[in-house]
């Protein structure tokens, strides 16, 4: 039934622009499939709900976290704080005061007195690093809901419906110092649904979800090819562009109505209504893109022509050669973040040469560079290891840490809340035995929302 609505509404929204490809016949078959799938899914959901409930109980026992309580007052006494602010501040022998879920004060131990009522946590050789942000995650939800490939683009789907607040993967994430993830659908179709920004600790969906929609997932090319009869970039890019243009037309029609420019109220469309935030630049387009031509198309179509906030995920192979176009677009006021990974290097057979992807992006003058894991492709806890790999091939270590913290926080429009260790921001960080890019270092403690959500001293993951 819902699918029928999809088709009907799509045509309404398009006005005289009809759907070009006669996908209606094909949709019938898919619809039946989808119906069968739903029944299955319902069964699964029930089981999952039970599991989740159990998990929540267990977790509450383990960590002693109870949402009803106010976040505690904590005083961390550590060897080093990487503030990761614009001034690139590093504070040695520092104190970080946390209260009410936020960072209250950061400073040298000699200058910051610890007030009464604060639980003092002494880790004098440890580093405090902002919580890592992964812009490309699939493990915060159920993996079986990864790809819903009904059409070549499925703009109405939303990962919010798949969020699993507690799972082993999320425990792994926070044990690795990863505190915020963008849960996105798979790249099986050109537009596969909305992403959800989620914390890696919490007991309910409302606990963990930071923003929904957190992004719209676009897969420019390099997976949707498998759809139905097999499609090429000519069709895929046409399809992506047309879907986004329909959404834009929908948004503009409503915007005109809201501004009072017309009295004719546009028809409501549940599929495209979610896109309005995208055109208001309240969330980003997170794009599965790699290979020169594909990255070029993403930059051209989404950033240059449609002026969307664009996050280039993966950006692998020879994608870094697009850097001059990105520089131009940034200079023209466009927003493009490059979140590279999980492939760290590209072996160029024609040049007989290995290129470190992050290093090449960096050297080509792309300052807004971060790192992703595509978890579970690479385990979520290995996010810093991904950055270390980037540095192994020539990236700069400090930039590598920035690419795990401030840059992705900016990319997802969260930089007013997280990404640095500054007073007023949410208390969200990892306490590390040393440099997080050193593979020997371990995250000993993770704080999210001012609460200790992982403590190796209580229960060690590894």
């Amino acid at each position, binding site marked *: 039934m819902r699918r029928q609505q999809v088709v009907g509404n799509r045509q309404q929204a398009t006005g005289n*622009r*009809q759907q070009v490809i006669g996908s209606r016949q094909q949709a019938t078959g898919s619809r039946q499939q989808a119906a069968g799938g739903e029944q299955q899914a319902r069964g699964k959901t029930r089981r999952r709900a039970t599991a989740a409930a159990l998990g929540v109980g267990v977790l509450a026992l383990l960590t002693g976290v109870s949402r009803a309580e106010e976040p505690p007052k904590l005083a961390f006494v550590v060897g080093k704080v990487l503030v990761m602010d614009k001034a690139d501040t590093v504070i040695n022998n520092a104190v970080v005061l946390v209260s009410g879920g936020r960072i209250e004060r950061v400073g040298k131990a000699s200058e910051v007195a610890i007030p009464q009522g604060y639980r003092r946590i002494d880790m004098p050789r440890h580093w405090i690093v902002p919580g890592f942000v992964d812009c490309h995650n699939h493990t915060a939800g159920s993996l079986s809901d990864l790809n819903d490939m009904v059409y070549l683009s499925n703009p109405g789907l939303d990962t919010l419906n798949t969020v699993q607040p507690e799972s082993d993967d999320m425990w792994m994430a926070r044990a690795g110092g990863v505190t915020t993830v963008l849960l996105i659908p798979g790249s099986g179709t050109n537009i596969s649904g909305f992403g959800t920004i989620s914390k890696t600790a919490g007991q309910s969906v409302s606990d963990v979800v930071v923003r929904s929609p957190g992004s719209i997932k676009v897969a420019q090319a390099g997976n949707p090819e498998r759809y139905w009869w097999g499609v090429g970039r*000519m069709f895929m890019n046409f399809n992506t562009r*047309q879907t986004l243009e329909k959404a834009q037309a929908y948004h503009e029609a409503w915007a005109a109505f809201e501004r009072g420019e017309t009295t004719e109220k546009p028809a409501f469309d549940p599929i495209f209504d979610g896109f309005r935030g995208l055109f208001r630049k309240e969330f980003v387009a997170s794009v599965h893109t790699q290979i020169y031509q594909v990255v070029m198309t993403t930059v051209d179509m989404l950033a240059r022509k449609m002026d969307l906030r664009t996050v280039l995920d993966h950006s692998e192979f020879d994608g870094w050669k697009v850097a001059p176009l990105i520089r131009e677009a940034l200079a023209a006021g466009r927003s493009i973040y490059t979140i590279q990974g999980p492939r760290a290097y590209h072996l160029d057979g*024609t040049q007989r040469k290995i290129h470190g992807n992050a290093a090449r992006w960096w*050297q080509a003058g792309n300052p807004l560079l971060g790192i992703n894991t595509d978890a579970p492709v690479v385990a979520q806890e290995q996010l810093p290891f991904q950055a270390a790999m980037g540095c192994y091939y020539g990236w700069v270590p400090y930039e590598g840490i920035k690419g795990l913290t401030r840059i992705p926080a900016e990319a997802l429009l969260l930089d007013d809340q997280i990404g640095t260790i500054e007073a007023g921001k949410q208390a969200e960080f990892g306490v590390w035995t040393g440099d997080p890019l050193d593979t020997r270092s371990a995250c000993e403690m993770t704080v999210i929302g001012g609460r200790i959500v992982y403590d190796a001293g209580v229960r060690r993951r590894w």
Partner: protein
Amino acid sequence: MRRTRSCRVAGLIAACATTGAGAVPPAKVALTGGRIVPVAGPEIEKGTILIEHGKITAVGASVELPFDAMEVDVSGKVLFPGLVNAHDWQGLDIPNENLDIGAALDVYDAIDPSRLFFENSLRDGVTTVHIIQANNCVIGGISRVVRPIGLDVDEMTVKPRAGVKMSASPKGGYDRMAQWAILREAFAELADYRERLAEQRYEEEQKKLKKDVDVGPAEARKRGAELIRPQDYDDAHANLHELSQGRLDAWVYVGAATDVGPAVKFAKDNGFFERVVFVLGPDTFKAADELKAAGRPVVLDVNLDFRERDPLTGKLKETFVPKVIADAGLTFALLPHPDASLAERYLTYQAARCIREGVARETALAAVTINPAKMLGLGDALGSLEVGKAGNVVVYSDDPLDFNTWVEQVYIDGILAYDRAKDVRIRRLMEEPGAEEKPKAPAGDSAVSDPAQKEDKPGAGEGATDPAKPENKEESQPDSPAPPTPSPEPGDDGASVERASDRADRAESRRRKDNSKSKGGPDA
């Protein structure tokens, strides 16, 4: 800014950037002292071509140069117009989209500037490529004329919306009846769509005037026909409509002689006959009379020979296709072979073969330059060395049709887009065996390898891979060409010596082949 970027060409990202980053190409370039083969008009034994702001402003034996022109001495070389590749899917990710009616699509979305194909095009003297999807389709996407330089498709573009691809021969899995049924259906549906659109438009206009629709549907459609605006057509129909109005070119694949008649009729029936170019299959030449009667330009198959055996006698019959087409007086274009390892890859080789088989030299040269330019509607802008045309010039080391000739330099719109002296890839490929093992030049001269660098540095023992120092890497510039060549003297002299020895090798092997043929060949 655009021009600066062009120098770091997409086609050459990997191989041979010609000028340093940031260097602005000169606005005025004079190529002096070369033999000029303009294709249009007589050859000039020793002349000058002046290119100003991308366009040719003078061609002749004596040309007065502006004071600010950069003079390039090309004495002993031959100047030839940039070759035009009339029809090629290479440069796309895949040859065909698997849709029957794909007229809404545009190759813009699939052209990959980083393809080796574009780089090789430059190497082969091709300055203009018509990118169009391949023949396995019913109605394909919109094609585009590009130059093989540029970081993105917009920068490469010479002419957008060059034409619509169509096939009069069955796509894989279809027979002729199915193919034609789908073709007819597409245009019948277009007519139907137009009727409905007319009615809708009439109703809209009446509503705007606050009037009732007071006529029947037939009359409404008649009245509404004039009210349709171009933007009213949806993506699915817009291009087909343009085509049916004769405002868009059609490149129709006729894979067999039997398809010519229906294709001609179809083009006439649907209003695009005046803008059709026929893309021929291997044996379509058998319908030379029909093609001649149609008088439309044709693009020949990459295989110029057509061989068939008489089913009864088993006797082999060979036909050299361009000769048949040329004799029919048709305007034709030759294509390069998509297999880069074949000689047919070179348009100049294809043209040279035509001459061997008795096609006039002018005709053969036109088939790789001005003819395809005209077919693309760019006859005034490309395809010959004439005043007012684009500064697309290929500097050959000798006659372009001699197979031992090299492309030395390629200018596109006056930009030095290719320079063999800086073609790292070719230099490396052509190196004599063992050259790589030769001792390196004294330290400080050539690029220092990593280990050496580490030894120089104090405290190099700490960690073999220090990630903190990307600037110590051999190359800090990502766009810079492939690794340094260890050849002793990478100069013109080295190259020419290399070439001479190559030539000797080739002559030797040819002699050997000839001998074996005359001894043991079946014709002996």
